[in-house]
């Protein structure tokens, strides 16, 4: 599984900078991120090259932050219909997507999606996803030892 760093941030100027400052200081690389807004605060979610280290450092600086397992789904060839195929597979099995954010890697034209589900463990998600031609990237594959 991929590991997402989730950080509680107040919704005011400079709060995201306070995170990027810490990551830069520690030479941590951000692969993907998204923000969920909830009025006076929001959650910043990130996939970074060294998630454990990032979480420890941020927590040490006083941020409320946790690590969470998310599924990293890869479509080896970026083309129209990939997401539709994936969502159809999940819909047919009644799987609810709780959170997802995706992008296309511009160099090798791969589609990458980080996903979290409402009821994991109910069905074998990795098997389903693999059956539809997607690849689930493991932590070992994703991160350098």
């Amino acid at each position, binding site marked *: 599984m991929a590991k997402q760093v989730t950080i*509680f941030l*107040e919704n005011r100027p400079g709060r995201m900078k306070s995170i990027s400052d810490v990551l830069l200081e520690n030479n941590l690389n951000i692969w993907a991120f998204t923000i969920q807004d909830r009025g*006076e605060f929001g959650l910043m979610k990130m996939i970074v090259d060294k998630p454990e280290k990032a979480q420890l450092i941020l927590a040490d600086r*006083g941020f*409320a932050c946790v690590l969470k397992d998310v599924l990293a789904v890869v479509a080896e060839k970026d083309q129209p219909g990939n997401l539709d195929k994936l969502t159809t597979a999940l819909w047919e099995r009644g799987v609810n997507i709780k959170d997802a954010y995706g992008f296309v890697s511009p160099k090798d034209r791969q589609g990458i999606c980080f996903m979290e589900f409402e009821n994991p463990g109910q069905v074998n998600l990795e098997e389903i996803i693999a059956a539809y031609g997607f690849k689930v990237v493991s932590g070992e594959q994703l991160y350098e030892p």
Partner: protein
Amino acid sequence: MNVTFWNKEVETMSRGGIEQLQVSRMQQRIADALKTPFYQHRLARAGISSPQQFRSLSDMQKLPFAAKDDLRQNYPTGLLAVAMEQVVRIHSSSGTTGIPTVIYLAQEDLNAWTDLLARSIVATGCTRKDVFQNMMSYGLFTGGLGLHYGAERVGMTVIPVGGGNTQRQIQLMKNFKTTVLHITPSYLLHIHSRLNEFKTRPQDLHLKKAFLGAEPYSENTRLKLEELYGIDAYNSYGLSEMNGPGVAFECVYKQDMHLWEDAYILEIIDPATGQPLPDGEKGEVVLTNLVRSAMPLFRYRTRDLAFVHPEPCPCGRTHRRLSRIQGRTDDMLIVNGVNVFPSQIEEVIMSIPEVGTNYMIHLARVGSLDKLTVKVEIYSKMFTGELNALDALKNRIRDRLRALITINPSIELHEPGALPVFEGKAKRVVDEREKL
């Protein structure tokens, strides 16, 4: 229960007798007050130029209230009613703002105060056979000297040790078989935690009673101390503006404190309107000192919140009982007409593990309505990263507050450490309504 009196005639006087005494003493105090720069002006404005204009207790309503600021602004001699050579004692407090207040006592005032303390001490069942170790600090603070003089007048053996030096305190308690302490509850708890160190068990001491005071504490703390030491602990009430301790004291029944009404006029008022409240209703304690000639002070707003027990005490004393102090008016907020205390909000916040202990209360006016916002910090160790959990947390805090204060507050979640940290006295309330 064995009930003993210091002055049974006064302590069991009929209500009519007490009120008659109050009126005649009030006339004396008005005569004194008319000699002071402060009251010459104040009483003239209220239309009072002679003591005879005070005919019954209902005339109290005509007198202006006094507040701590009056004492500060008239420091040092604005309320002094006698020549300085008549003054035998000065007590002073620096106060948190640094502007001092001062209290003057003439010999007859000191005698009267000492008599009230002797009365208070005897009401708890103490006799001249008791050994009294006074662990309250002496000096300008009224707590130490007040009880000291009272205990001597009762004829107890007095050990004037003052506060601190736990080893010595324990040694004195053992050597002189101390039976009664005057002490802050926190120090009494501290001594217990160190008894082992000095190879002493509570039962090695000869303690029977403790007079607690000088700091706020809960009923649970009292019960805990009684259990730890196997003693009876008595609540007391006093404030330097009213001389110090001995304004009100518990009797052997320990069902709240008899306020000595021959010496003080007690009123409970609505702090917002200044109107008197009936017995049983909680409000601000307002006191008038009837037995101090050197420095008259009428209708002093103590800012303490309490209520009066209307029913008589089984001990037979006719002086009404004051409840334990329930809070301070300084802190009270009026939000859409409802009285709210920051301590109520704090109580709720402290009961919720997902938020830290720091908080802020923000008040604003939106249209014609007050808006109360409570800002709390997320507690890092309880953060799950789930938005639903954060939404549920806000709802839980809001629901619990609404149940307690009947107002629907907005809850704001903040990052750990984001709210201001206060050194010393915290200023947690920001009231933007005042600017309108």
